[in-house]
């Protein structure tokens, strides 16, 4: 068996070097036409979270509901196609599922930033949210500086994680794969605070049965939520941008937002 081990190790190292020096192309880049593909198929596949209330989660009857789900339903109605909701497990899977064609569009409280824009394309914002902190009342967090030295739960690959590293480098970060796990950590007292989207923090501060959590009144920074689509998909991007504009112009977005949050949404500047 020893000889086999030696061969295997050498073989793997050689293989790794070959792969590293191999800048191959799998397929040439081509223009996408998701819009027509959806219409022809009669079905749209939308990626949303299923453990991120109130944007995408399971209700008491275990139906997949949420703000993003309502937006997706609206989109499917407008296109007159069937809606298939695809559950996205982690933050970076939004990008992975898009790139691999599992979903046609990602409507999942997706913060647009420049890094992600290198891999996929974002539409115009449909909601302006922000990054904020959900904290245990005794921790008394008011700003980024207060997080230094505290245990802060974040989800890997999220905007919150990136900002925490920049703004509070001395914070003791607990990095979970999903926001749901990070939330549980704060709720149980394993972390003093959690950094995530502003609407999420406010929603969960009120939701704690022990009433031990609080959220900041104002976000620490503002972030746009957009739909995510693949690159080279201009027609689909144009369609979705116009759809978002119509959502806001007709007041439908305000109606959906108020249903889940009880207040009016933050004003999004129109691009049309």
């Amino acid at each position: 068996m020893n000889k086999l081990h030696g061969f295997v190790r050498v073989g793997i190292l050689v293989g790794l070097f070959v792969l590293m020096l191999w800048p191959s192309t799998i397929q040439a880049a081509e223009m996408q036409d998701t819009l027509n593909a959806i219409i022809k198929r009669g079905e749209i596949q939308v990626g949303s979270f299923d453990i991120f209330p109130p944007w995408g989660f399971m209700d008491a009857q275990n139906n997949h509901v949420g703000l993003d789900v309502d937006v997706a339903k609206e989109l499917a109605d407008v296109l007159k196609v069937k809606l298939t909701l695809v559950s996205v497990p982690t933050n970076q899977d939004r990008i992975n599922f898009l790139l691999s064609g599992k979903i046609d569009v990602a409507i999942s409280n997706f913060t647009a930033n420049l890094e992600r824009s290198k891999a996929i394309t974002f539409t115009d914002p449909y909601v302006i949210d922000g990054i904020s902190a959900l904290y245990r009342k005794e921790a008394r967090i008011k700003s980024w500086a207060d997080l230094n030295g505290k245990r802060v739960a974040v989800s890997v690959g999220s905007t919150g994680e990136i900002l925490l590293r920049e703004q509070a480098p001395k914070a003791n970060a607990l990095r979970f794969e999903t926001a749901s796990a990070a939330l549980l950590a704060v709720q149980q007292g394993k972390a003093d605070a959690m950094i995530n989207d502003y609407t999420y923090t406010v929603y969960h501060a009120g939701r704690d049965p022990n009433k031990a959590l609080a959220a900041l009144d104002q976000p620490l920074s503002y972030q746009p939520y957009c739909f995510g689509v693949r690159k080279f998909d201009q027609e689909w991007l144009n369609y979705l941008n116009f759809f978002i504009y119509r959502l806001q112009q007709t007041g439908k977005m305000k109606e959906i937002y108020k249903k889940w949050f009880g207040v009016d949404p933050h004003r999004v500047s129109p691009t049309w």
Partner: protein
Amino acid sequence: MHGYVLQFGPVFQEMPLLLRGALTTLHISFLALILSLMLGTIGALCRLSRFRWLRAPAALYVDFIRNTPLLVQLFFIYFGFGQVNIQVPNYLAGLLGLVLNNGAYMTEIVRSGIQAIHKGQFEAGSSLGLSFSQLMRYIILPQAFRVIYPPLCNQFIGIILWSSLVSIIAVEDLGLEAITVASTTFRSFETYMIVTAIYIVMTLTISTALKLLARRFFRQTA
């Protein structure tokens, strides 16, 4: 997939981060090995004991652990206990999960090792007037150790591989660094291929080293 070019370069740039995670994996695995071997020895002695009040709980423990998944055990220790206000920090929870899980398998391994020792050894020892613990310490367990060495090495490899699950409860090991690098470079396939290769290199190196150790130390006695 359209326009996807395999590029390993960005992942290799993050190698220091991955290696730091590998170090965490190694030390949590090593600690888990030592502690679960200790737990396993106690468990084996309990299972072989005359007293029913020692035998039954040990058997129950082994049965329950071996029929439930490690991931669920980890969630139960970290989040489950947290709900009833027993707070276990994440590294400790990961270690505890690995120790309890492998302790059950170690119990069976050590038990079969002890049972493999010829009964004559026990009788000879006790006729020489040795107490039970002296008998165990100087005669039985050293011989049992040699018998169980191969499955023990296998179990150590298993611990290293299954330790990747502690990344799900935020322990900064190789698994979590893999997810981090995948999300910052957007190169998921390449990252996981390289991380898998790192795991393979670790396990092969360690298992070869353990085999060489065996040859050196177990050659002397019959």
